[in-house]
Each structure stands twice: as structure tokens, then as C-alpha cells.
């Protein structure tokens, strides 16, 4: 006991320094996900309701009979998978082209410009893209007509085209922070390695896929894993874009947000959260396995 007291006496400052964080994390980060799992088994309706009415897997059973929910999963895959491909591929694309710029001055200017879209509120981007896609005087319709690709205006914001429009929103997807992260990995490849590849007659594309990729495995993991986690629970486009143009596309996370926001079926909303969490976990674990297997091959 005295030994313990002496230890605490010597380290009390360190303990005091983590105390606010630890207390906050226990309350605001550990408790909510655990409670979410509990909640998903109860038939709670409103936010301020008591935790009564144990429901077993009732909420989950209800979800799988709910056509809005089932359709939202299909929408999630048709909309978010292509966006994931974009989010993963495009940062590499920008990192590579900027890396190959010879002038250091231009290179740092590009790095700055790459981040510039961060200052643009997502509301503004969304609004401008609604104008670009507009049926009556949208610039996309005008351009496509001018090029002779279409002869009549296309309703890009209607049910038939909205998913494609959302995928191509923000084209050419200036890559922001992830682009910079990948670029930092590229800059870090030893110059000798690149010279050796050059001397061995390795072409640009071969070098990108063989040399660069193996040095970038850490960044690839980061971009891919966080891309998956983020995109499976992203509903910003639903809140901003789809609501305003009047073509609703439910994705599961958006459905959950709606249930909470309108204060109904809280238990069901929690069940969506738990189910989505399970899906995200499985996909993330699979990605990790795949990447680690690749990693070992390269070694």
C-alpha cells in the first residue's frame, strides 16, 4: 500500500494531466456506443423516454421488413462505392501529377491550391452544382448540347440521373488533405530508388505501380480505411443536395439522422447504427487483411 502511495505521489501530475480527457472520454466516447447497443434492443420511441420495453431483436426484425431501409442499402452501394473509388484514386492521381512537376515553386503553389476548396462551405459547392446540373439553364446541358452529345436537355437532378450527378459532383475532385498526405509519402521516397528505377529503364507508369505503390502502403491504408469508414456513414449530400432538389435518396445513415431529428423510433435508429457499425467493421477488417496480405507479398 505504501508502495502504491509513493508511486502515485511521484506521478500525480501525470495522472492529473490525463484526468479531464479520460473523464470526458468515458462519458462522451465510451458510454454512447455501449448504450447504443443496449438501446437497439429496446422499444424506445422518443429521445426523453425511459428505457423500458425490452424488445429483443424486434428493432432489427422491423428494419429488415422496412422497405425504406432496405432500399437505402442499395442506394448506399450504388452511390457510395463509386464515390469511394473516386476518393481513393483521385488523391493518388493528384499526388503523382504534382510530384512530377519539375519547378519547386509551381509545386508548392499547386499544393496550396489543392487545399483551397476547404474554405468553400459545402452549402456553396452544393448550390453551384445544382446550378451546373439545372434542367433549364444549367451549364452542363448547354455544354453537352454545344458539343452535340445530347440534342435535348437532360434532367440531371431527376430520379434517373441523381446518383450519377452526385458521384460527379465536385469534378475534378481536387483532393485536399488526402492528396497532400499521399504526396508527402511520394516526396519521402529516397532519390536513389527513383534514380535506380530510371537507370533500369523503368517507365513512368511502371514506376508508379511498382515502386511508388510499395512505398506508399501506409498512406494507401489510411486513405482506403478512412475512406470506407467515412463514406459508409456520410449523408451530407442527402441533407444538402437531395433534399433541396426534391429527389430523395435514402442511405442508412441519413435514415437514422432523420429518425433522430424528427424524434421518432429512437430504438430503431440505434439499431440502424449498430447494424451499420457491424457492416463497417466487417468491411474494414476485410480491407486490412487484403492490404496486409499484399504487404507481405511485397516484402
Amino acid at each position, binding site marked *: 500500500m505504501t508502495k502504491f502511495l509513493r508511486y502515485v505521489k511521484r506521478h500525480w501530475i501525470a495522472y492529473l494531466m490525463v484526468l479531464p480527457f479520460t473523464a470526458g472520454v468515458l462519458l462522451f466516447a465510451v458510454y454512447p456506443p455501449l448504450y*447504443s447497443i443496449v438501446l437497439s434492443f429496446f422499444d424506445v420511441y422518443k429521445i426523453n423516454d425511459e428505457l423500458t420495453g425490452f424488445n429483443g431483436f424486434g428493432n432489427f426484425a422491423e428494419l429488415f421488413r422496412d422497405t425504406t431501409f432496405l432500399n437505402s442499402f442499395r442506394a448506399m452501394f450504388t452511390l457510395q462505392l463509386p464515390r469511394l473509388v473516386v476518393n481513393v484514386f483521385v488523391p493518388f492521381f493528384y499526388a503523382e501529377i504534382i510530384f512530377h512537376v519539375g519547378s519547386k515553386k509551381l509545386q508548392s503553389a499547386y499544393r496550396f491550391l489543392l487545399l*483551397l476548396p476547404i474554405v468553400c462551405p459545402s452549402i456553396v459547392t452544393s448550390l453551384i452544382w445544382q446550378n451546373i446540373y439545372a434542367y433549364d439553364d444549367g451549364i452542363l446541358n448547354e455544354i453537352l448540347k454545344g458539343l452535340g452529345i445530347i440534342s435535348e436537355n437532360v434532367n440531371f437532378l431527376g430520379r434517373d440521373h441523381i446518383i450519377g450527378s452526385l458521384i460527379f459532383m465536385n469534378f*475534378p475532385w481536387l483532393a485536399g488533405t488526402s492528396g497532400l498526405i499521399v504526396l508527402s509519402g511520394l516526396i*519521402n521516397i529516397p532519390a536513389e530508388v527513383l534514380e535506380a528505377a530510371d537507370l533500369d529503364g523503368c517507365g513512368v507508369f511502371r514506376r508508379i505501380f511498382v515502386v511508388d505503390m510499395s512505398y506508399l502502403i501506409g498512406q494507401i491504408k489510411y486513405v482506403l480505411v478512412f475512406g470506407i469508414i467515412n463514406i459508409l*456513414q456520410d449523408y451530407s449530400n442527402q*441533407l444538402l443536395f437531395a433534399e433541396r432538389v426534391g429527389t430523395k435518396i435514402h442511405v442508412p445513415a441519413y435514415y437514422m*439522422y432523420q429518425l*433522430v431529428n424528427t424524434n421518432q423510433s429512437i430504438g430503431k435508429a440505434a439499431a440502424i*447504427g449498430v447494424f451499420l457499425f457491424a457492416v463497417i467493421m466487417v468491411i474494414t477488417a476485410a480491407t486490412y487483411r487484403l492490404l496486409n496480405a499484399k504487404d507481405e507479398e511485397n516484402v
Partner: protein
Amino acid sequence: MFERKSKKAAQITLNSFIIFLFAIGLYPLFMAVWCAFKTPDQYRLYKWFPTFPLRGENVSLAFDKIEGYMTRTAFVAVAATVLMLFVTTMAAFSISKLKFKGSKILFALILALNMVPGVLTLVPTVMLYHTLGLNDTLWALILPPAFSTGTTFLLICSFRGLPDSTFEAAQIDGANDFQKYLLIGLPLAVPIIATIAIMQVSGTWGDFAWPMLIMTRANYTIAAGLKTEFYDTTVSMPVSFAAYLMASLPLIVLFFFTGKVYNEGVVASGLKL
């Protein structure tokens, strides 16, 4: 000689290609700027390019509507960032450099919590703030970043990169744990701290989903305010754009002064992956 020429040609092609992409990518930004100074007729007819004369009236019309949101958001952004930096840097330094019993468990907890997605926590978090009576108070916006495990993880990674010998020397000179943090740890971590602060300010500035869920309309921050006052209504488009432009102005100023630091911070943290 011939090779150098073809290399130069390749560079010119590459640069033109990049500039072309950036021009398209940044076009919405520029469009937002010139649309803010148009009359309704100019907007209807020529929204795709700038026109003259500029209509400055839009700005004052918009400013009256967003002033309240702006001051509230500025307060929340500063308060949230200061509290967050205080709590997370202390914890991160303690966990990474002071090595007390339990620090490994805490680190493992942080790693595990990093994997928990927002969808799992949204519902109970809303309920928790209601139970604590913090819904519709500014605390609901200021508190959450302080307990962000992602931020703390980033800080732990960068504190770990600092040499232990510096801190051992300080200890021999009689510095206690808090002095090691305040006088040595913090100054050495300024680049990553600045990066995190910028991310937090722009995060508070741009977030609308959480404020709309936890606050009533009278207490919205700027992004939620813009959405309800302009985006979801039929207010004249040029006035709306003027509002968006003014609302982004603080971020634009922040970015121009700190863009370089942010850039370097991202690169430095990217290298640790």
C-alpha cells in the same frame, strides 16, 4: 539537347494539364464570389461569368441576417479550439512521454475508440446531452472536440517523435512533469498543434448537421444558420451568395495566413503513417 527539349515540352504539357484541372475545380469558388455582387437580373442572365457594375448592397442586406450567427460561431470556434487544445495536448503528452501505470491501457482505448464510427454514437450522444441538460446550450458545441480520440491519437504520434533525452535533461534540471509539458513539449509541437487548431476552427465553421440536431434555431451556428436562412428559402440568390461569401471570409483569411503551416502539418503527420 534533344532530350532536354522533350523534357521541357513534357513539363509544359503537365503544367497546362494541372492548371486546366485546377481551373475547373476552383471554378465554383470564383463563381460564388462574382454571384455575390450581381443584381437579380444579372444573376438570371449571366451567372456563369462576372458582370459589372458590382452591386455592393447585397453584402449589407446579407450581413444583417448573419451577424448574430457569425459572432456566436466565432465565440464557439475559439472556445472549442482552446478547450480542445488544452485537454488533448495535456493528455497526449502525459500518455506518450510520462509513462505512468495505465498509460498503455489508455492508449489502447484511444486506438479502439478511433474505430467506432459516428453512426453508432449519434443517437445516445443526443440523448446524453438532453439528460445532462446541455442541449441547446453552447456547451453542446464546445465540449465534443475536447474528447476527440482522433485528435489525441495524432498528437500522441507527434509527441512520440520527440527525443526522450530532452525531457530527461529537463528532469535532471528539476522540471516537474507539467513544466516538461508546458515549456518543452508544447513549443516543439507547435506545427501539429496549429494544424489541428485550423482543422477545428474550419470544422466548427462548416458543421451544420450536429448544431441542427442539438440546438434550436435561435442558437444555430453559421453553417446551420446559412442553411435555414438562405439555402432552404427563396431569398434572392445574389444576396444568398453574398451571405455565403461573408460567412467564409474568416476562413479565407485564416487559410491565407496559416495555409503554409497547415500544409506542413499535414505532410508531417502523413509521413508517420
